[in-house]
């Protein structure tokens, strides 16, 4: 009986049947031999013992059938060699052998069961081992991927100068600070976790209040926050930081921690500043260029009061040179002269203001006043081409935040363009400036003319840099105007009128009253 189960380590060799049965005979023969030997030496004859051992050995190593064969053999030998024993003792011996044989069979079965169980266990263990190895391999791969991904993340943080962080709200301590975070703040990673206070120290004193306020508000409202502040590195350098944080709540809705990132935006700030400066410079140059173009009309404009002054001075002399000088008339002429000269001075000073190099100043501006001023500035040029100029302004004027010189420049540029468009046209030449407030609180200023209109299908292209229809044009005026308006949060666009000419519209956001 060979028991076959899974596992090669269990297979009992079937081919060794000869060996197994041979074992039966051999063991009994050995038992017999030993008994003879003992007999020879006049020792007690324990053939039974030897026979039982032989049977046991055969059962164990040979299997059940060979064992039975051995038992039968032993019994037979007993009969043949010690036949003088009485039948009872013979029967008892046989019974003993039988019982022994059964016992051995039982033992064999147990052994088989045990072997099966062991085999199963071994199979299980091997399987488990294999699974475990697979899992370990998988885990290793995953760890490798994680390491890889962390390396990429760290690299990305380094490239973008962004450090990630996590702060525990209750303990006010850091749970995670990335490598880049340390680098940004100028801390040494070897120092371990940086405390709240230590970090606070690095923040610029002027910005501490604002930053704290933002965080406390976020804690109270359990909301995210975004804040910008400066830090001072140990070397004394100032860097600009932009920090964003999200709250993490637990199951019961309590605030546990904040996760977020801090980015060093110093380069960006500097670039923005440089850009702003460049724009201001470009705008100023454009302004000067336009003023240059206005020189002719400026000369004419100033000429008027000067000519009037000359006439009035002559008149005054005439009154005084009479035989009877008329002092009242002379005085009147003289006072007219004063008015003339004052007007001339006013024109000059108004123009000089536009040449001044002013740094961009953000303040509350009165758009209506700016419109009135620019109408005055351009009146000379308008008169030169027989253009009527007037303004239709909204009754109410909301506050607009902006740089007044830049806004003046936009209006000047647009009015100049309108005058250009009407220079050579027939029919009435009108330049109208309107202001109105839209439903959503925007201020819209429209400059309408009765000129040649926009180039066909290019209502937006005209705002491109270097686009010009003038032979001597720079093509920058509208481009600069648009970027000024956009930097004020507004829009500048153009459209043909339904009748003659075109209109330019600019919208500006109005100052909203702060509720907080």
């Amino acid at each position: 009986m060979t028991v076959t189960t899974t596992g090669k380590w269990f297979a009992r060799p079937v081919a060794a049947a000869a060996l197994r049965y041979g074992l039966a005979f051999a063991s009994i023969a050995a038992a017999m031999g030993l008994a003879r030997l003992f007999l020879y030496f006049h020792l007690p004859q324990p053939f039974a013992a030897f026979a039982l051992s032989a049977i046991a050995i055969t059962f164990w190593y040979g299997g059940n059938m060979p064992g039975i064969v051995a038992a039968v053999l032993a019994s037979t030998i007993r009969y043949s060699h010690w036949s003088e024993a009485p039948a009872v003792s013979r029967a008892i011996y046989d019974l003993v052998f039988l019982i022994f044989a059964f016992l051995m069979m039982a033992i064999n079965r147990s052994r088989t069961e045990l072997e099966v169980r062991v085999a199963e266990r071994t199979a299980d263990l091997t399987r488990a081992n294999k699974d475990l190895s697979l899992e370990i391999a998988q885990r290793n791969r995953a760890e490798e991927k994680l390491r890889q991904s962390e390396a990429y993340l760290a690299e990305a943080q380094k490239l973008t100068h962004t450090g990630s962080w996590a702060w525990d709200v209750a303990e006010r301590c850091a749970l995670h600070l990335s490598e880049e975070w340390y680098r940004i703040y100028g801390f040494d990673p070897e120092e371990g976790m940086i405390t709240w206070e230590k970090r606070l120290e690095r923040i610029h004193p002027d910005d501490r209040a604002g930053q704290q306020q933002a965080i406390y508000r976020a804690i109270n409202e359990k909301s995210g926050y975004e804040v910008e502040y400066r830090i001072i590195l140990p070397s004394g350098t100032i860097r600009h930081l932009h920090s964003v944080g999200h709250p993490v709540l637990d199951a019961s809705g309590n605030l546990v921690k904040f996760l977020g990132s801090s980015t060093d935006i110093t380069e960006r700030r500097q670039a923005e500043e440089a850009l702003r400066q460049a724009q201001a410079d470009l705008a100023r140059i454009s302004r000067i260029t336009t003023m240059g173009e206005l020189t002719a009309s400026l000369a004419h404009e100033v000429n008027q009061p000067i000519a009037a002054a000359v006439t009035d001075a002559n008149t005054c002399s005439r009154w005084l040179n009479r035989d009877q000088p008329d002092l009242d008339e002379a005085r009147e002429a003289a006072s007219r002269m004063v008015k003339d000269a004052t007007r001339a001075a006013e024109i000059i000073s108004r123009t000089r203001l536009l040449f001044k190099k002013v740094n961009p100043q953000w303040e509350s501006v009165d758009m209506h006043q700016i419109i009135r001023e620019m109408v005055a500035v351009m009146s000379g040029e308008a008169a030169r081409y027989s253009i009527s100029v007037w303004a239709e302004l909204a009754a109410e004027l909301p506050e607009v935040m902006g740089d007044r010189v830049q806004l003046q420049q936009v209006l000047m540029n647009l009015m100049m363009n309108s005058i250009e468009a009407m220079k050579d046209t027939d029919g009435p030449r009108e330049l109208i400036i309107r202001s109105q407030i839209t439903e959503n609180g925007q201020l819209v200023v429209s400059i309408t003319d009765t000129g040649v209109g926009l180039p066909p299908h290019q209502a937006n292209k005209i705002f491109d840099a270097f686009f010009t229809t003038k032979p001597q044009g720079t093509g920058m005026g509208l481009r600069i105007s648009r970027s000024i308006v956009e930097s004020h949060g507004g829009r500048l666009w153009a459209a043909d009128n339904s009748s003659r000419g075109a209109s330019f519209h600019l919208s500006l956001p109005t100052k909203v009253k702060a509720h907080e």
Partner: protein
Amino acid sequence: MIANSQSIIAAVAAERYFVTMVVQRKAKMVAIVDDDELMRSALQGMLKSVGLPSRVFASAEEFLNSGQHQQTACLIADIRMPGMSGLELQAKLNAEHCRIPTIFITAHGDTKMRMQALRAGAVEFLAKPFDDEVLLESVRAALAN
């Protein structure tokens, strides 16, 4: 037109004294048309100082609408004005056969414009700032005709 001719004949026949009398009796006006207020006052003051009454108008339209052109003996006008220009006014008056001696004073004096104005019958074309005496001569000349 006919009235003017009569007074011209009368004036030529008489002495300067009579000329003055005739001019005063007919109350001939000098009209000043200029959009610049300071210029208007200066010109009016100047004419007053030589005893010539004048009327001022802020625009060519105002002058035409006033109905004074029949009484106007001399017109001093600016060229560049919003709305109707001085040259357009001249053309309009010519079209109505209202030949008023016109003196143009302007800050934008270019030769082309000067030619155009003189060809259309202007008495004089002066650039600002002008010499008072030259203007007065032209006015007197215009009134003498």
